[in-house]
């Protein structure tokens, strides 16, 4: 009773829509995905620029920021960044990157764009809720930006906003900024939950005929499981944020000790959300990379079923490890041991994924197009980030490296080296479908090479800073004698970081130039098997002229049954499908 047929075709009266209904308050999942794309790239840039200010201060402590003379006295008098502004910058860099850049890029852009197209549905189950989800996120972004313009400055307690610093204006000097930070994330949480329930419902109920669970591309699997994580983790954050907001404004005492509140409770709630959150930031990346690596290798993904189970295992175990952020927090040390073991175990499904990617490359026929290059960078860099996680997972080692730059290195290896490279790969891969134009391969490769080099020059030395004991969130390391010898490394990192930002210029140029001037994209430029490549680029409203039927798994590259080295999911070939069809 609820097959795709029940949803019918939505392509009616599209031409009659006004510009506003078509591009602004659109209910078309593809437009909404593109809206999310522009919004989150903007916030990515904002977060990147804040990183540059952070790096300036750390590379050249106390010297006026070039062009920083225009900043208000309360932030950087004469262009010299103040400690309170530095703390706001770090907080907002983390916040924007995690909540307004990477998360919407993965879960806003690609979940929206790919789910209906890849499962053969005309749109999301609830198009209007989908539209609301975007606009609510947009409002959240505005609220977050507004925090820079209020008295007392923006929130400055770190993206983790540990109480009681974040709960007590008398101790932090920040009130309105923290309140706006809280409100913005509560609003964003609502947006994410609405998005997630849409994705889950759509994937469960609207798959095209023949699209069994085990015929779904890994990108869809990972987005599905990610949506479940979002659905169940975000409300925990919302609840915690609301209580913190009340501590700030109504005089409640959840997290402030004088009235009996528990500072550690905030950390438990935050990380009970926070660790699933970091997997929200990596699982979709892993899924899309799997699609792209199979495509680039022209070979079926190695171990499809175990890939699916590994995603599920990571997601489930992700709920049991939150305490690894709290080893040194004063949490019961015996809990620490438990959390250590569960954390270590997460390396196992991650290993499965890594080796299966390698297995996919093995005896392939590898085409090094730009998406593939970025996907390979994902694999090699995520491994570094994941392996550095093992150091921190070991409780005794974490005693030393907790809250040092070792952690900062880990963050950026998994989030930039992992998520962001995967996002670059996805942008290059699906851009032709989204905009109907090809991006320049040459510029793409230049962008990739420069980014890869300067990214490593920026973040790899941070491991050494961390090993030297360099603490994080430090405005001026020269206050400590033991860190004075590290100034050279810090300056080197900063220079590499500036070049890293500069390396994004070819990307931005490529992105905007190709919108108008890129070569017209064919339906299936990468010779891929997914259903999205069977429709025109860009796909019309309603996606499929006729509900497609799926005959086999998504990775039938090099199938001996056909002469081409790819086999679209909707092309009937008896006997095709290998294990993925079972």
């Amino acid at each position: 009773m609820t097959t795709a047929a029940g949803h019918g075709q939505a392509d009616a009266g599209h031409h009659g829509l006004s510009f506003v209904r078509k591009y602004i308050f659109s209910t078309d999942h593809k437009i909404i995905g593109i809206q999310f794309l522009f919004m989150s790239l903007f916030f990515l840039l904002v977060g990147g620029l804040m990183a540059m200010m952070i790096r300036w201060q750390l590379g050249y402590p106390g010297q006026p920021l070039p062009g920083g003379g225009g900043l208000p006295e309360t932030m950087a008098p004469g262009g010299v960044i103040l400690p309170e502004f530095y703390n706001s910058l770090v907080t907002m860099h983390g916040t924007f990157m995690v909540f307004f850049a990477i998360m919407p890029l993965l879960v806003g852009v690609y979940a929206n764009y790919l789910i209906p197209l890849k499962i053969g549905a005309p749109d999301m189950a609830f198009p209007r809720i989908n539209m609301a989800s975007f606009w609510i996120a947009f409002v959240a972004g505005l609220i977050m930006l507004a925090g820079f313009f209020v008295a007392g400055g923006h929130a400055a307690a770190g993206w983790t906003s540990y109480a009681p610093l974040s709960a007590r204006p008398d101790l932090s000097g920040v009130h309105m900024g923290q309140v706006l930070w809280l409100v913005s994330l509560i609003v964003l949480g609502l947006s994410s939950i609405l998005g997630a329930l849409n994705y889950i419902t759509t994937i469960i109920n609207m798959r095209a005929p023949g699209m069994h669970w085990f015929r779904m591309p890994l990108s869809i699997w990972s987005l599905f499981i990610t949506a479940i994580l979002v659905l169940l983790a975000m409300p925990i954050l919302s609840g915690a944020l609301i209580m913190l907001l009340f501590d700030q404004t109504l005089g409640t005492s959840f997290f402030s000790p004088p009235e009996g509140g528990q500072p550690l409770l905030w950390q438990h709630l935050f990380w009970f959300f926070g660790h699933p959150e970091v997997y929200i930031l990596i699982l979709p990346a892993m899924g899309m990379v799997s699609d792209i690596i199979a495509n680039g290798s022209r070979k079926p993904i190695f171990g499809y079923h175990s890939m699916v189970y590994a995603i599920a295992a990571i997601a489930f175990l992700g709920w049991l490890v939150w305490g690894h952020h709290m080893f040194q927090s004063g949490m019961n040390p015996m809990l620490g041991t438990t959390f250590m073991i569960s954390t270590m175990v997460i390396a196992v499904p991650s290993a499965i994924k890594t080796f299966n990617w390698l297995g996919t490359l093995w005896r392939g026929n590898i085409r090094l197009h730009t998406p593939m290059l970025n996907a390979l960078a994902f694999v090699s860099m995520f491994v570094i980030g994941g392996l550095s996680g093992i150091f921190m997972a070991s409780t005794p080692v974490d005693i030393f490296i907790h809250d040092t730059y070792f952690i900062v290195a880990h963050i950026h290896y998994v989030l930039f080296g992992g998520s962001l490279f995967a996002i670059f790969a996805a942008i290059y891969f699906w851009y032709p479908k989204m905009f109907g134009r090809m991006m320049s391969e040459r510029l793409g490769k230049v962008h990739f090479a420069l980014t890869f080099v300067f990214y490593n020059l920026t973040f790899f030395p941070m491991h050494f800073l961390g090993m030297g004991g360099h603490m994080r969130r430090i405005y001026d390391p020269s206050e400590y004698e033991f860190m004075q010898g590290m100034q050279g490394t810090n300056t080197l990192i900063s220079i590499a970081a500036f070049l890293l930002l500069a390396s994004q210029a070819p990307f931005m140029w490529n992105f905007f130039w190709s919108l108008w001037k890129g070569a017209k994209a064919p339906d299936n430029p990468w010779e891929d098997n997914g259903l999205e490549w069977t429709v025109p680029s860009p796909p019309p409203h309603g996606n499929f002229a006729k509900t497609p039927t799926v005959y086999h798994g998504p990775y039938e590259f090099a199938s001996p049954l056909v002469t081409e080295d790819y086999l679209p999911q909707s092309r009937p070939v008896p006997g095709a499908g290998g294990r993925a069809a079972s």
Partner: protein
Amino acid sequence: MQWLPPQASTYAGDIDFMFWVILVITGIAFVVVEAALLVFLIRYRHRPGRRAHYTHGNTTAEVIWTAVPAVTMIALGIWSGRVWAEIKDRDRMPTDAFEVAIEAKQFEWTVTYPGPDGVLGTSDDFAVRNQLHVPVNRPVKIHLTAEDVIHSFFVPEFRIKQDAVPGMTIPVWFEATAMGQFEIGCAELCGLGHYRMRGVVTVHADDDLDLWLSAQTADEEAGT
């Protein structure tokens, strides 16, 4: 660039050893993965007329690369747990330790010493700002707390770090093995002065510490 700082406490060596063990394990994993990646990229790069090998996987291979990390990780976890318990288990802390209390607040460390009677929490206790004086080769136990927000007590050379949380008193111990001065850092963001919340530990020979302590008490008395 530098490696780990000099070791100056009894368990610094244990922690560093774990660090190296993990570096070796992860180093092997790293080399295997990246080498395989590069080799495959070169050997199996696209060539005209080439067609990829059609396979959906290999159960034996998958079992191996699931089992090997699983065993390694669990072993590593159990081993780490031992070292951890030695350092942080609250029931196993040394009992014959030199005890002090530290209260962290924005942006300083107030160290309370037991005074002449050698017992904390009595009226002859005295407090000093940002100066922790301890004996060498004798366990030191700190009762760590905070007045306002969360701070974190960190001495790199001792490899000790412990958050100081308002409303909680958390025991921390270490045994210094080298004399001299070391810096105390605050490792938890605690406000705008977080970056300069610096203190100093001075590790004395036993008699020196007594001298210092009695000098302090004398000052106290002279002051009152």
